[in-house]
């Protein structure tokens, strides 16, 4: 499954980054690498973007970007 399918309160581990180039770099810069634990924290009113906890920071990702992060549910 991909990160955009994670519901608030659920946790997962990054399996693979499917993005390329600048977006991929951005994810790596934020510490999102294979093996990183992620938690869906909350949904914005329209459901996009979503807030995720990564390495004790909370970041917002668009649904599109989250869809390019393959995860394994914890």
């Amino acid at each position, binding site marked *: 499954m991909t990160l955009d399918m994670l519901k608030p309160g659920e946790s997962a581990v990054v399996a693979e980054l499917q993005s390329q*180039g*600048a977006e991929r*770099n*951005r994810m*790596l*810069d*934020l*510490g999102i690498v294979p093996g990183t634990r992620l938690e869906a924290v909350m949904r914005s009113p329209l459901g996009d973007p979503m807030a995720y906890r*990564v*390495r*004790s*920071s909370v970041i917002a990702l668009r649904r599109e970007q989250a869809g390019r992060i393959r995860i394994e549910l914890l």
Partner: protein
Amino acid sequence: MGVQAETVKSPACSACTASCTSQLVRLGIGTTGWDYVIALAGNPNTGKSTLFNVLTGLRQHVGNWPGKTVVRAEGSFRFNGRNYKVVDLPGTYSLLSASSDEEVARDFVLFGRPDVTVVVADATRLERNLGLVLQVLEITDRAVVALNLMDEAARHGLRVDSRSLARDLGVPVVPMAARRGEGVADLLGSIEEVATGTYATRPRRVDLRDPVLESAVQTLAAEVDRAFPGLPNARWVALRLLEGDESIARAVREGTLGELTRNGPSLPDKLMALEGR
């Protein structure tokens, strides 16, 4: 309150390291000649501008949102008889820049040759902040890590072993709470030691681990050095080229990479161009 503190001071106070900050003279913008140039780098929202204001006495806008420091701010201070110019860079997660303000920070750390790069790290989000720290250590020996927001960390029940961290990173790590002025004296001492070379840093470098990649980097770095003699960090540039970094590739193609070295006027021009956009 401050006046009271002054009056109880005995002559012995000025000799002890605890009163180091009393030797700090904030010079505001006044930069007529300096001995050392200090760059303040760090992730967004780690307190770079707060620290900048504490050091220089200026009131650079401090705010809790990303992208606030769009172009660099400059100020200066005097410590122990030496003048320092401080450059407050925009917050960045990485030196592999994604946006134009991140590029400003990257170019200055890479090619502006600051005497000391202070990486301001958020003690409450240390793991993420260490990425940039390691990237900075890749390209310079002269770095100090300011472990800021230690008061916040304590409030969250976090304890950071800054000594072990300093040993592992090979550069000084100074725990601080800049907005309360805590740790400023130690930071000044560390900056001075690194600037003057009294503290011999041994920055941690990540090994490439792949002999094929290593030899490719060496071959390309030699080419880069031939094309841009005197360019610092040819090895770093080579790695970026192998990675397909478009902004670095463009700078090499157009020959603008060389302008970023020593006497190149391109950085201020570039900043002006950014502001004009």
